[in-house]
């Protein structure tokens, strides 16, 4: 997969922190953040997930001129009902090599990992796929390593 240029911007960090209901000033107040141990605005631990915004091919963002599976006039924009509920997120792990700071530009590379299958009572056959994402700084040094496991289900997960 091509490398993604991921600018880590203060406004984006502020919006992300709001989205998780985190009012910690270290995520939105540059003056207050300077007085903390972090010595400036840093990103919350799960922020690098927002790399999706900078992936031109990201499949879970509607794109002009392309069909989108969400509802519009009908319940889905596709011609047929999707065969499965689509991918769900099973696991996520981050290793932090150092704090991620507002104003940095990361270069992020996604590597495919293992693939495995499992039978489940709640959702039929499950296919798991692992992905490793390395987020590096301007010097090529690792800032955050992310490991995610996605799962594709045969049918919607029985929530009962």
């Amino acid at each position, binding site marked *: 997969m091509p490398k993604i240029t991921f600018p880590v911007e203060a406004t984006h960090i502020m919006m992300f922190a709001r989205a998780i209901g985190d009012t*910690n000033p270290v995520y939105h107040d540059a003056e207050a953040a300077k007085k903390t*141990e972090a010595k400036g605005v840093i990103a919350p631990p799960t922020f690098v*997930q927002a790399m999706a915004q900078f992936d031109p091919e990201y499949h879970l963002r509607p794109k002009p001129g392309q069909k989108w599976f969400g509802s519009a006039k009908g319940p889905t924009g596709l011609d047929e009902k999707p065969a499965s509920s689509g991918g769900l*997120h099973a696991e996520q792990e*981050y290793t932090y090599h150092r*704090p991620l700071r507002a104003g940095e530009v990361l270069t992020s590379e996604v590597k495919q990992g293992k693939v495995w299958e499992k039978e489940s009572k709640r959702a039929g056959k499950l296919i798991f796929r692992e992905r490793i994402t390395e987020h590096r700084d301007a010097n090529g040094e690792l800032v955050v390593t992310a490991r995610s496991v996605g799962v594709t289900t045969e049918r919607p997960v029985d929530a009962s």
Partner: protein
Amino acid sequence: MALKASQLKVGDTHTERVCENLSRTQLVMYAGASGDYNPLHSDEVYSVYAGYKSVFAHGMLSMGLTGKMLTNWVGDARLKKFGVRFTNQVWPGDTLDAKATVAAIRQENGEHLVDLTLSTVNQDGKEVVSGNAIARVDP
């Protein structure tokens, strides 16, 4: 306001209510900030059509909420590792309590570290996130 290894013991816990009566608006905020616009999380019409009772939270929102408890406790820029499994879905109206439990206190390469096990439960006591973390603490 960092934690001190000398004042921690295995089995110590910290709990924080990380969301109350989760709103669909919060899910939309998370979609917008993260860039994950999967309609299962923001489009009730589609989600019901796809076989779910309503929209439900991004797994990463429940991890983000759990992370808020962690950083509020261990301090800013202190995490070395943070990993979770998404064990149950989170629905609009849910109230979540995130808990960290000290599993070990140790030293590595001259740093004082604490190993934590994590569990976030909903209002019915059902676990929605389980995981673990490693944080740097003061001596």
